[in-house]
């Protein structure tokens, strides 16, 4: 397991480097991006004097490296900040406070994260079932009508932007057929049943987009496996076709499917912006878009670090899972 420890260590260091690079990039990007932060925070009608006060309050007049240093200090040592009436301590790792609301960014993340995670995990179940099922069927029925039809359906999901699928689904399912309530986020801890019902459509919309990728991967890997010698062995030993498809060909596809899944989940946690926006799910992606528009730098950095964290984590996880699922692979 020594190789494994080394692998984890390398990955952790890599992740930290990546995240720091991300934060530096964000700081630089926002430095050159138009949008007078102090003016936006203060309001369009604020006088130059007021804007100056706000800028001082938010340390916006400091040079870039000083601001970044302040940010780093918050992460490693935490920092104190004023609410006006009192001085609060933001414990390390502190990502600072929102320019707009003064809330601690870490708090914002903790309120948004469950939403994004709920969305992605539920959707994951659907896209796995849908994608793998379609993939198996189309590998089995390769070249026949069934396969073409399935391909067309999954592709329709991928090709159509989520805001179109989602809105049409909502109009039809919730508005006209009245099968489901219009989605509106309910905390899992408050009411698990409502949580699921309300998230069903967002799950479906997101899953429809991702399913095609899994279908194609499953199909390709299965065809790959079906062409391998050991499949010939089992055929030559009279093992039934269904057992070959399910036990052997599908098993051969698991490693890559698991790896793709980890990566997809990782990027969707912060990347399902359109789904979150359309369904009004107050998740990471939606918050990021909002924060970008109002140039709320601490929130943007926080959200980017969260999404980056998940992406990096997912990639590492994909490698590990791939290696675990396919013992032949050596971790490097």
């Amino acid at each position, binding site marked *: 397991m020594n190789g494994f420890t080394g692998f984890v260590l390398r990955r952790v260091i890599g992740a930290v480097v990546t995240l720091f690079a991300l934060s530096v990039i964000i700081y630089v990007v926002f430095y050159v991006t*138009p949008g007078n932060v102090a003016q936006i925070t203060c309001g369009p009608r604020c006088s130059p004097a007021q*804007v100056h006060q706000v800028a001082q309050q938010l340390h916006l007049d400091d040079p870039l490296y000083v601001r970044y240093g302040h940010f780093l200090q918050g992460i490693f040592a935490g920092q104190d900040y004023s609410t006006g009436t009192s001085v609060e301590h933001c414990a390390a790792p502190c990502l600072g406070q929102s320019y707009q609301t003064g809330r601690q960014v870490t708090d914002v993340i903790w309120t948004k994260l469950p939403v994004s995670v709920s969305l992605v995990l539920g959707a994951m179940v659907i896209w796995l079932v849908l994608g793998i099922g379609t993939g198996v069927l189309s590998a089995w029925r390769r070249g026949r009508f069934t396969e073409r039809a399935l391909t067309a359906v999954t592709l329709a999901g991928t090709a159509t932007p989520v805001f179109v699928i989602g809105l049409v689904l909502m109009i039809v399912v*919730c508005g006209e057929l009245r099968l489901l309530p219009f989605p509106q986020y309910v905390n899992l801890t408050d009411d698990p049943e409502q949580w699921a019902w309300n998230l069903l459509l967002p799950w479906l919309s997101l899953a429809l987009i991702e399913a095609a990728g899994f279908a194609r991967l499953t199909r390709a890997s299965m065809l790959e496996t079906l062409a391998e010698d050991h499949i010939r062995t089992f055929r030559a030993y009279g093992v039934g076709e269904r057992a070959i498809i399910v036990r052997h060909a599908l098993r051969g596809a698991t490693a890559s499917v698991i790896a793709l899944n980890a990566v997809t989940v990782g990027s969707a946690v912060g990347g399902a912006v359109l789904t979150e926006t359309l369904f009004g799910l107050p998740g990471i992606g939606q918050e990021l878009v909002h924060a970008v528009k109002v140039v709320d730098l601490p929130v943007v950095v926080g959200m980017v670090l969260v999404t980056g964290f998940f992406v990096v984590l997912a990639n590492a996880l994909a490698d590990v899972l791939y290696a675990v699922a396919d013992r032949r692979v050596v971790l490097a």
Partner: protein
Amino acid sequence: MRQPSVIARRVAAASVSLVVAAGAAACGPEDNDAKASGGDSAPQKGGTLTVLNSEPQTDFDPARLYTSGGGNVPSLVFRTLTTRNRENGAAGAKVVPDLATDTGRPNKDATVWTYTLKKGLKYEDGTPITSADIKYGIERSFAPELSGGAPYLRDWLTGAADYQGPYKDKKGLSAIGTPDERTIVFHLNKPEGEFPYLATQTQFTPVPKAKDTGTKYESHPVSSGPYKVVSNDNDGEHLVLARNTHWSAATDEERKAYPDKIDVRSGLDSSVINQRLSASQGADAAAVTTDTNLGPAELAKVSGDKALAARVGTGHFGYTNYLAFNPTVKPFDDPKVRQAISYAIDRSSVVNAAGGSALAEAATTFLPDQKSFGYTPYDPFPAGTSGNAAKAKELLAQAGHKNGLSITLTHSNSKDFETSPEIATAVQDALKKAGITVKLQGLEDNGYRDKIHSVKTEPGFFLAHWGADWPSGGPFLAPIFDGRQIVKDGSNFNSGLLDDKSVNTEIDAINKLTDLDAAAERWGALDRKIGEKALVVPLFHPVYKRLYGEDVKNVVISDWTGVLDISQVAVK
């Protein structure tokens, strides 16, 4: 002007979020325009009102809110010295007392305003509301930590320009006197007859100093209104308000407060809000929206469905979309060019781009077409409905542009409809007929704002809009045309860089008037005078179509806000 929405929305969210509640059982429901109220039976107390909004109530601190007339949801929690009259249409554009016994008693030249609080006013915890709390509330709005409100207090109160709020400056604002617990006196640095309008804004809500938690106050602001905050999740994404038992209907003639509970859901896509309201399923039957109106597509659908059409309220709000010129940039330094463009403009296609004749009214005046603004119809450069290309060409020829003209129109790429690409392309298409080639310069929203609001970078020709802080000509004309409001090193709104002595003098003169009707008339006349300078081309005034749920009754939409006043709505 209120800060317009910063998030791209396909349908303009009315730039207003207001509120209120009024009426107590004791007063009984007021007479309302029958057409505008949903349902036949008389409104009853009880039930839960759902509010579906696109913009989260991210700010819920009275110091930070920038509202017209106290806002809609905020007004359920925050009472102010004065408030807007909660009635349909033009009557709703009047200012009425709220915490105070009257709309304010000015001295002779309207530089000192005195208010007396009603008796028996209490916070949600039962403690009495004092004039010192109101003063404190105003003071904290000066703190840089809590910036965001309108500029008037800082501009008008004596010696307030450099005040940094009570956290840094314990001495407080000397311009506000509180001789006793029920009296509060404001000293202004110049005559301001419209001070009662200003006193409707949330900065005039009382904040008990002992409960002030600075930037954290907004998670649970202390209520003085009929509802208090029960929960505020996700930065105002999900707000639940319940009855404030210490609120007394006897002290509040404006807020009806029929529902027992208000459930505010926000962060929703505007098309989803309208779908939910039209489906009117479950809790959505008792739902309204305070920031989303019907977009053109939804209007097209609703207008074909009688049942749905009956659930649409129409609102007006003082708001104008226009083309702005910067006369320091060639060729707009030539009045003939500006006039030519004014003649050439095809308002019907602009109106279509804004959603059609039901959602926008073509405008030839800068002031909104409402009496409270002093609306005086005029059209110095008649372009008809689809533009007068011949006249425009003639003027261009006179200006030396015989072979046409090539200009750049700056606009925001953000899809919020006032400055959107759609309107810009409509303008582009319209001016083509007059031989004017328009290049579009679409900027990201922040970049657009930076550019058009800076004297140094202001483009020659751009799309702009202006909304009323209160229904009067003052806050509409002064920031745009008062030469002394040109801001050289900050956010400037006087896009035409007009510094005309006669205009400035007239503005000062009208501000002295405390007779608001008389003032309105003179604002109207001033508007006409400025209009002839062709510094702007008014395009249209938006009209708001508000859909509401099947169980919603007592619908009141005033011309002050143009939104369903949720303090009046009943769901039983």
